[in-house]
Structure formats: C-alpha cells, structure tokens
C-alpha cells in the first residue's frame, strides 16, 4: 500500500534522510522507530506530499504522490507531530473545515464529525475551543482530524507525545481499531514500548538511515536470545577496552569513559561464567545492569546508544 524507495533529503548540508526504503502492506500497522532527529518526520512529510524528496520516490496504492498529488492525498489521513488545529475555532468547526476540504458536507459531514469525536472521547467537548483543552485532548482532536474522512492510509507522527497515560491508551486503542477496520497505518514514535505493543512490523531509523526492519519477532531474534550488560564505574575508555575485549562469551557494543555496553553471546558460557571475569582485575566497576532481550536491546546493539525521550 505504501512503497518508499530510496528516499533522501538534505537540509543545507545535513542529510536528514539517507536512502530510506520500506513497504507497508494493506491493513498493516508499520512502525518507524527512532530517537529525536532520526529523520522520521522528514520521511513522513515526503510520503504525504508536503516535502519534495531530494531523491527517491513514494508510491501510495501504486501511484506517485508527486505525480498525482490530489488523487493520492484523498486517500491519505495525516496526523502531524505538531497540534495543527485552530485554537480559536471550536473542535466541531475545525472538523467541519477539514471535512469540507475532503468534499464532505451536510448530514454526512455532521455524522462523521459526531463519529470521529466520540471515537476519541471528545463527544462532550465538540463545541468548545481547543484553547480550553488539556494537552491530551488537543492531541486527540489532532488525531480526530486525520480520521474524519476515513482515509485508506493513515500516517501518524508521534501522536502520543506529551500526553497523560489515559489519553495515550485511548490513542493506541483508536489506532488499533482503525487498522482492524482495514486502514493501513504508518506510525512513527520514539517510544519503544508503543512500537512493541502496536506494530506488526517496524523499521528502526537513526541518522536518516534504516538500521533494521522486520516483524517484532525477527527483530527480537536479531537482538539474540542473550542479555545486554551495562557497566558503569570510574574507568576510562582505554582501560575498559583492554580489559573487556579479550573476554570470551561477550561482544563489546560500546565503550566510553565510565560506561560500557556488552552483549552476551547466546552460544557462550553464560552470564554466571562471564560476570566474575568482568568484575575481577583492576577495572573499577561500580554497577552492572542486565537487560532482557527487547527492542531496546536491538537498538543498543545497532547503535551502542539507548533510545530515550
């Protein structure tokens, strides 16, 4: 349904998106997971025809967004990262305006507005202005505007940033419902758990490049069955490298002054055998933490960094 081919975008010298390719099948929830500045929004903007790709192309349902913008945009629902609503118009007036741009009018428009408002739990607040809303309510209205015209493809850009857990659950629930009804969803986030919870497949993106891509299971397997170990203490980088590199059964992912990250080799001797070797000798380790296999580990394995807010 969505086919992204070698997308690339530069902003005066800075390569924001660097050869991104993936496909999203109809009815699938596809996640684009990456830290801030990874290039998620830039990618999304190129997909929905807001930003012209520097290179590569996007096909929605087999059609190029830039060749047939109107036809393609009719199929798209976009929920932008910023809360793009008119604060001074009521929620209903915002929706009415947006619906009329998609050719909805009269009784049908009104029915759609009622439906969309109650879907995101704003039925009671339709006649209020967003400037009186909480952050979570504004986010839900922002989502609502992307759903109104029942798009075949829904693009969501970090729709849960800065909202309370309750509202967040509501948003995830709505996305799941929409997808269950057959809508193709592209969901970007920097929240690991959201991606794990929601997505059928996902791609991990950092510095404008897709690092890996697959189903959740495939990605977890990539992280290996093994745990990830984090050491911290008052050692320097050189000493840590010297000490840790020769140890059997672990792979050094990242070494810095005072911290190191290692992956436990599933085929190696195991945690209990490795741990004493890590801690003996002259390396001043103050703390060790062990993380179970998860997307977090995949990310750490791929970048040596942790994915954070």
């Amino acid at each position: 349904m969505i086919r992204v081919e070698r997308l690339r975008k530069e902003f005066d010298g800075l390569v924001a998106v660097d050869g991104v390719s993936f496909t999203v099948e109809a009815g699938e929830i596809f996640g684009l997971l990456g830290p801030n500045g990874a290039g998620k929004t830039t990618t999304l903007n190129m997909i929905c025809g807001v930003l012209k790709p520097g290179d590569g192309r996007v096909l929605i349902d087999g059609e190029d967004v830039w060749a047939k913008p109107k036809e393609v945009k009719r199929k798209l629902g976009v929920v932008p990262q910023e809360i793009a609503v008119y604060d001074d118009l009521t929620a209903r007036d915002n929706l009415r305006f947006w619906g009329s741009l998609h050719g909805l009018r009269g009784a049908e428009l009104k029915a759609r507005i009622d439906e969309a408002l109650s879907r995101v739990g704003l039925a009671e607040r339709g006649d209020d202005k967003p400037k009186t809303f909480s952050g979570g309510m504004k986010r839900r209205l922002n989502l609502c505007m992307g759903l109104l015209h029942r798009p075949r493809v829904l693009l969501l850009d970090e729709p849960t940033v800065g909202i309370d857990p309750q509202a967040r659950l509501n948003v995830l629930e709505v996305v799941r419902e929409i997808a269950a009804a057959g809508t193709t969803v592209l969901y970007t986030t920097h929240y690991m758990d959201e991606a794990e919870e929601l997505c059928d497949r996902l791609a991990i993106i950092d510095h404008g490049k897709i690092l890996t891509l697959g189903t959740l299971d495939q990605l977890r397997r990539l992280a290996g069955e093994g745990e990830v170990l984090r050491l911290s203490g008052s050692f320097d980088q050189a000493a840590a490298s010297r000490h840790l590199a020769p140890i059997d059964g672990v792979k050094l992912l990242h070494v810095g002054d005072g911290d190191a990250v290692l992956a436990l080799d599933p085929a190696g001797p195991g945690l209990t055998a490795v741990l004493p070797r890590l801690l003996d000798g002259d390396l001043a380790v103050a703390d060790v933490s062990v993380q179970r296999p998860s997307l977090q580990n995949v990310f750490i394995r791929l970048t040596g960094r942790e994915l954070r807010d």
Partner: protein
Amino acid sequence: MNGVLAIARCDLQRLLQDRSGLIWTFLMPVVFAAFFGLAFTGGSDPTTARAYLTVVDEDQGPLARRLVTALEAGQLELNVVAPDQRPAKPVRTLVIPAGFSRRVLAGETVTLRLEKEPETNEPAALVAQARIVGAIARLLADLVAASTAGDGTLSPEALERLDAGDDLVRVEARYAGRVQRVPSGFRHSLPGNAVMFVMLIALTHGAGSLAGERRNGTLRRLATAPLSRAEILGGKLAGRLGIALVQITFFVLTALAARAFFGFDVGDDPLGLWLVLAVYALTVAPLGLLFGGLIRDPDHAANAGALTTLGMAGLGGCWWPIEVVPEAMQRLALLLPTGWAMRALHQVVAFGNGLAAAVPSLLVLAAFAALFAAVAVRTLRLT
C-alpha cells in the same frame, strides 16, 4: 473551488472569533473617520469660498475695460472703483496703472499690482489669484489674436474687430490645476481612514495570522489536503479579500447611516466609494500574505505590517490632503497604493467627478494588485 471557498470562509470565521480583531476591523475605522471628519469640517472648499476683489482702474482705457470684463466672467465679488474712490479696507486690490492700455498696445511690459491684507482665508486667496491669472490670460489671448489678424498692428480697433468675429483663441480661465480643491471634513476623513484601516487589517491581522499558521502547523496540514497549491493560495487570498470587503461594506453602510441620521456630508457617491475601496482591497490582500509569508514570527510580521501601513497612510495622503505637502512628497505618494487609492477616492468622493474619473488610478491599483499577488504567490512557502 470548494476548497478555495472553505479556506476563505475559515479565515473569515476566525476573524469573527477575535474580539480585538473585530474592534480594529469594524469599530476603529468608523471612530477615526468620525473624529477627524468632525474635527476638520469647515467651509474651506475653495469652489464655494467668496473671493472679494477691488479693482482700481487708473487707466480707464480699452484694455483695462477688457480686463475687468474678463474678471467679471470669473465670478469674483468684484468692486471696480475709480482712483479717487478707493475703499478704506479692501481685502485685496488689483491696481491697473494709468497708461496700461497705451503701453501694452505699444508692446511695453506693464506691471499690475495686487495689494493684499494678511490672508485669513487661504482658499479664497487662491481663488482670487487663479481668477486674476485667468483674466490676464484671456486678455493676452485677445491681444495675440488681434495682432495676427488684419494688418498685424495692435490697436484698439483691431481688438474691436476681434469682438465682432468669432473667438480665435479661447482661454478657459477656470479654477483649475494642482491647487484645485482640498478635500476636507468627511470628504477627506472617510477615504483616508478607510484606506488606512483596510491596509492595517490586511497587514497586521492578515500577515500575523498567516505567519501564525505556519508556526502552529495548520499551513503544513493544509498542504496534506487534496488541494493544489494554487487552491490553497487562492483560498488564503480570497479569505483576505472577503474580510476586506466585509470591512468596507460595513464602513460604507455606517457612513450612509451617518448621513441619514445626522446629515453628515459623506461625499457624492457612496457606491463609488465602495467600488474604489473594493479594487484597493485587491491590492492590499496579497500584500498581507506577502508580509505573512516573508516574516516568520507572527508578532514581527504584524508589527512590520503596522509600521508599513502607518508609513504608507501618511505618505499616501490618508492623514492630511496630499495637496498640502511639498511637490516631491506628492510625487512620492504616486509610488504607493495608498496614494493612488486616495487619488481615486478624491475624484469620486470629494470632487464628485464620478467613477470614470477614477479609472486611471484604479488601473494603477490593479497593476499593484497583480504585482503583489505575483510576488506573494512566488515567495509563499507552505512548509
């Protein structure tokens, strides 16, 4: 097309939600126009000013008589006296010196003397002066005609012959020219404030809200709708135009109400006032988008718009009649849409010359509109 209208309607709807926007759009122009209209109302229209002139005829010759006749045709409050009958305190006196006719016919230069009291009535002085110049021109025309007719000698008889025949040269000595009439009262304050406030709203509210839409992402969201760029820009332009038209309509209707209830002199042609302002709105609407498109920060955009409006209003003749400023400044006004709008409005509102007289100025305004729209469309980025 539906998209264009939806965007335009949305902008209008947002203005209606904005209390201070409403006050500045609808109330302030009326308040300002009323205040300045009442403050500067006075019988200073030179076409109706009574211009007194005493003529002392020391010459008593044929050319002096001709000059007096020409002055009489100029509709002055004329008082022709012999040298020994000079009144005690004339406002202004034209002295035709003895030997005037003889010396002029002999081809000598003769000086006519205009004696004036310190002026209290400026327009009347201008009128008197213009008519004296007109009468002299008429006399000269006759002299030229007489000298070219017949045997080529200039004589009283040649002049008599000239009167018998048709006029060869006719100098229309009307009160005309640059100092023609200076609009005052409501005839100036209505056009002046309408021109200023239509621009003010477009360049502050218009520019600010567009820059705000870029900042809060609604403009980017608009770019995801199934609309072409032309439709989006067209919608924004139509929205600003619609707001200006509502503003203008309210303003003109208020003026009509003021005429009906208080008998204010709001000019000769309220419909003409509306039409000229509507053309002017076409010029100003894209200018607002231009400011909002070029300046990122909404507050900066609105501030720049306000300053620009005040500058253009002052220089364009919205605050005081352009006729009272130095000529270089009057030329400067012709570089500004406000200057042309005021020019057109004076024709229609103050001078009652009808819309046809304003057409050249309207064409200039249309050219401004095309220029501003082209630049705005070129420079405006939705994302």
